[in-house]
C-alpha cells in the first residue's frame, strides 16, 4: 500500500463523521478498512469522539456561551404540559419500548438456524476457514461503521436477518441461503472494486510518472529558452555594436572620400602644372637646341611698303642647315586682304624639285604668333626656298592662294 494513499484514508476516516465525504470516498474507505486494521481502529475512535464526546463538549460549550435566558417557571410548566399532552396524543406510539420477554422456542430455533448457516458458509466458501474467520471478525466492525447514515454492503443485508428472527426454521434457512448468495455477490463486487482500485492506482502512478517526465521536459525547455534569451540578448548587443561600428565606418568613408576628392583636385592641378612644365620644358629644349645648334640661320622677314620703307617684321625663321626649320609668322590674319576662315600653309621648293607642303601654321597660346616646325632633314636638304600661301581651311595639295612670306635657305649661316 502506498503510504500516501494510506494517509488519505486516515484523513477520510476523520472526515467521514463530518458528513463531508462523497459516496465514492466512503466506498473506498470501507474497502480499505476491510483489510487495514489501524485505519479501522482509528475510524472507530473518530466515531466515538463524534458520537459520544462531542455532544458532551457541545453541551459544555453551550453552557459556557450562556445560550438562551432561563425559562420562567410558567413557561417551563407550559412546556411540560405540552410534552404530556403529546404523550397522550401519541399514545399508540408513546408506549415505552420495554425489553420484551422472548419465548424460549425462538432462541432455540434461531440458534439452530445460525448453526446451519455457519456450516453452509464453511462448506461453500472458496477461501476456507481462515477467510471465514476474517469475515466473522469483520462483520461487527462494518456494522459499527454503518451506524452512521445509510448503511451499505453485504453486512447490512445480513444484520436485519439475525436481529429479527421470524417464522419457522425453513424460512430462516431460505433467508440464510439468500444472504449467502448476496454475500457471494457482494464479494464479487468487492473484488471488482478492488481491481478497479488497483487499476486506478496504476493509472495514477503512470500519470505521476508522466507528470514527472513532463516536468523534466519543461525544465529542459525552460533552460533552453533561458539560453536562447541569453544568446538573443548577446546577439542584440553585437548587432548594436556592429550598427554603431557601421555608422562610424561610414563616417570615416565619407571623410576619406572627401579627402580623396581634395587630393584628386590637387592632383589634377598638379597634373596641369606638370603638363605645363612639360610643355615649357619641350619649348625650352627646342630653344636650347636652336641656340646650341651650329650653322644656325636666323632671319626676320620684312615687307616693304610702297614708299620704300621697311615695315614692321611679320615673319622670322630659325633654320639649322639640313636639320630643322622653325618658322614664325606675326599678325598673318590681320592683313587687310586676308579672310577669316583660311589656313596658312607653308611650302618648300628646291632647284630641281617640285613644290612640297611642309605643313600648316598653327597659333600658339598668345593667338598672335603662328608657328611651323619641320624636322624632316631629307626634305630640308633639298629645299632652296620656303613660302606661305593662304589656303582654304585644312590646306591644299599645291599652292593656290597668294604668297605672303618668302625666305631663301641656301645662304650661309649667320650664327655659325
Amino acid at each position, binding site marked *: 500500500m502506498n503510504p500516501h494513499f494510506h494517509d488519505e484514508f486516515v484523513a477520510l476516516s476523520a472526515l467521514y463523521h463530518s458528513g463531508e465525504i462523497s459516496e465514492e470516498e466512503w466506498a473506498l474507505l470501507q474497502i480499505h478498512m476491510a483489510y487495514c486494521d489501524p485505519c479501522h481502529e482509528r475510524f472507530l475512535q473518530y466515531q466515538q469522539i463524534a458520537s459520544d464526546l462531542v455532544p458532551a463538549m457541545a453541551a459544555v460549550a453551550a453552557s459556557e456561551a450562556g*445560550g438562551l435566558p432561563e425559562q420562567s417557571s410558567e413557561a417551563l410548566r407550559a412546556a411540560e404540559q405540552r410534552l404530556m399532552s403529546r404523550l397522550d396524543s401519541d399514545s399508540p406510539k408513546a408506549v415505552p419500548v420495554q425489553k420484551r420477554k422472548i419465548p424460549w422456542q425462538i432462541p432455540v430455533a434461531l440458534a439452530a438456524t445460525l448453526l446451519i448457516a455457519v456450516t453452509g458458509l464453511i462448506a461453500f466458501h472458496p477461501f476456507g476457514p481462515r477467510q471465514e474467520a476474517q469475515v466473522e471478525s469483520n462483520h461487527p466492525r462494518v456494522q459499527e461503521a454503518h451506524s452512521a447514515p445509510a448503511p451499505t454492503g453485504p453486512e447490512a443485508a445480513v444484520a436485519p436477518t439475525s436481529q429479527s428472527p421470524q417464522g419457522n426454521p425453513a424460512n430462516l434457512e431460505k433467508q440464510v441461503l439468500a444472504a449467502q448468495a448476496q454475500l457471494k455477490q457482494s464479494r464479487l463486487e468487492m473484488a471488482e472494486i478492488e481491481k478497479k482500485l488497483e487499476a486506478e492506482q496504476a493509472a495514477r502512478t503512470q500519470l505521476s510518472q508522466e507528470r514527472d517526465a513532463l516536468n523534466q521536459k519543461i525544465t529542459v525547455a525552460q533552460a533552453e529558452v533561458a539560453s536562447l534569451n541569453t544568446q538573443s540578448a548577446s546577439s542584440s548587443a553585437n548587432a548594436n555594436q556592429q550598427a554603431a561600428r557601421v555608422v562610424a565606418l561610414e563616417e570615416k568613408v565619407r571623410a576619406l572620400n572627401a579627402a580623396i576628392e581634395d587630393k584628386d583636385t590637387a592632383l589634377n592641378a598638379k597634373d596641369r602644372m606638370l603638363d605645363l612644365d612639360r610643355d615649357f620644358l619641350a619649348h625650352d629644349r627646342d630653344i636650347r637646341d636652336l641656340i646650341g645648334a651650329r650653322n644656325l640661320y636666323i632671319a626676320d622677314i620684312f615687307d616693304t611698303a610702297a614708299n620704300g620703307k621697311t615695315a614692321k617684321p611679320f615673319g622670322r625663321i630659325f633654320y639649322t642647315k639640313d636639320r630643322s626649320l622653325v618658322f614664325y609668322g606675326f599678325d598673318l590674319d590681320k592683313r587687310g586682304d586676308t579672310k577669316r576662315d583660311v589656313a596658312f600653309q607653308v611650302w618648300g621648293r628646291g632647284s630641281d624639285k617640285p613644290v612640297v607642303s611642309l605643313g600648316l601654321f598653327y597659333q600658339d597660346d598668345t593667338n598672335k604668333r603662328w608657328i611651323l616646325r619641320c624636322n624632316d632633314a631629307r626634305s630640308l636638304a633639298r629645299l632652296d626656298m620656303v613660302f606661305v600661301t593662304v589656303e582654304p581651311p585644312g590646306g591644299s595639295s599645291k599652292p593656290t592662294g597668294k604668297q605672303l612670306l618668302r625666305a631663301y635657305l641656301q645662304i650661309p649661316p649667320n650664327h655659325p
Partner: protein
Amino acid sequence: MEQVCKGSRDALALLFRKHNRAVRNVAYRILRDEGEADDLVQEVFLFLFQKAALFDASKGSASSWIIQIAYHRAINRRQYLTVRQHYDALELEEQRLGAGERRLFVDALVAKTCLNRLREQVSTEQREALEFHFFDGYTFREIAEKTGQTLGNVRNHYYRGLERLRACIFSKEGV
C-alpha cells in the same frame, strides 16, 4: 430512567425539569432559533419516553445520554433545515444510540477537560473549524464563508484538529 422505562410520566416530568435547560441550550446553539430549540426539546423527551429501554447505565450517566440524543437530533434537524432533505431521524437515532460495545456517555467534567485540552493543543484555525462544525453545526462550506478560508483549508484544519484531539484522548495519558 428505570421508572421512565416502565412508563412513568412523573419520572419523565422530573427528567424534563432537570435537563430541559441543557438540552435547550445545545439545541439553540446549533439551530439558532428559539422555536426550533423548543420543538427539539419536546422531540428529545418524547424519544426518551419511547426509547428509554435503549439506555445502558453501565455506559454512563443519563444526563450524558440525553445530551447525546439532543445533540445528534439538533445536528440532524439543522441538516434537514439546511438542505430540506428527507430522512428518517428516528431510525437514525436508534442506529446511532443503539447498544454498541464501545458506546460511552461522557459526563460533563470529562467533556470540559477535553474541551480545555482541545483549546490548548490545536491552532486557532483548527479550533475554529472544529467548534464551528461540532458546536454550531456549520458545514465546511459555511465555515469557509464565515472565516474567509478555502473549503480545502477548512477541511484540512478540521482533519488536523480532530487528529490532534484523537491522539490526545486515545494516548496512554489521555482522558
